[in-house]
C-alpha cells in the first residue's frame, strides 16, 4: 500500500470476472505520512482508506469484467462497518463480490480480513462510465497488470 498515492491494492490473488469475484491483498506499510496525523503516537489506517481499499478491489474486478472499456467510479457506500483498528504492518485480505450488474452502474459487497478476522465490510455502488481520457485508461491497465503479476511472482 502507498497510502499517500491511494495505491491500496498490492496484489490480486484470485480474479473471476465472469462470476464477479476477486480476492486481493494489501500490506499496510510500517511508515506513512498519513500516520503522522492519524494519529500522533497511535498510528491507525483511516477508515475511509479501508473503504477505498474495498472500492479498489471491487473496481479492478469490474474493470476486468468490463474489459477496460469503462471505468467504475465509486458513487455510494452503504452499510459500512469498521469493526477493528488496523495498525501499521497488518496484512489485509480483501474480498469483493458482484451483487448486481446494472445498466451504467454496478453494486458489490466487499470485506477486509486480517489474520482471518473481519476488519470491515460494506456495500458499494459504482457508476460505470467511459474513461474520461486515454491517460487514465492506460494508467489503470498498467496498475492492473502490475498487481496481477505480483501474485504470480
Amino acid at each position, binding site marked *: 500500500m502507498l497510502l499517500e498515492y491511494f495505491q491500496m491494492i498490492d496484489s490480486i490473488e484470485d480474479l473471476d470476472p465472469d462470476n464477479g469475484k476477486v480476492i486481493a491483498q494489501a500490506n499496510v506499510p510500517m511508515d506513512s505520512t498519513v500516520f503522522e496525523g492519524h494519529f500522533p503516537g497511535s498510528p491507525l489506517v483511516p477508515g475511509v482508506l479501508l473503504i477505498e481499499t474495498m472500492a479498489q478491489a471491487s473496481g479492478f474486478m469490474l474493470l476486468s469484467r468490463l474489459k477496460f472499456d469503462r471505468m467504475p467510479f465509486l*458513487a*455510494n457506500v452503504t452499510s459500512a462497518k469498521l469493526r477493528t483498528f488496523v495498525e501499521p504492518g497488518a496484512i489485509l485480505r480483501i474480498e469483493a463480490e458482484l451483487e*448486481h*450488474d*446494472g*445498466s*451504467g*452502474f454496478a*453494486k458489490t459487497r466487499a470485506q477486509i480480513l486480517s489474520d482471518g478476522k473481519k476488519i470491515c465490510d460494506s456495500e458499494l*455502488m459504482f*457508476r460505470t462510465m467511459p474513461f474520461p481520457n486515454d491517460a487514465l485508461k492506460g494508467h489503470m491497465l498498467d496498475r492492473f497488470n502490475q498487481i496481477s503479476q505480483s501474485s504470480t511472482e
Partner: protein
Amino acid sequence: MATTFEAIAKIISETSDIPLEEITPEKNAFTDLGIDSLDFLDIAFAIDKQFGIKIPLEKWTEELNENNALVDEYFVLGKLCERVDEVIAAKDA
C-alpha cells in the same frame, strides 16, 4: 399481486424517503419528487432486483442526451412503469 406502479412506488418511497401518498403516476421522478441521479441508481437497482431485469438506463440516458426522447417519456412514473413492463415482457418472451 401488486401492480408495477404499486411496486415501484413502494421502492421509491423506501429508497428516497418520500411518503407513498405523494407518489402518483403523473409525477416526474426528478422534477416533481426531487429524486437525483444518484438516488435513481438505488431505485434502478431495487427495480432490477425485484423484477429480475436490467432496465436500460444507459440507453434511455443516451436517447435523452441526443434529444431523441423527452424526459417525461421515461421518468414520469406512469411512463416509467410502462417501460419497465416492456422490459419484463421482453424478458419473458
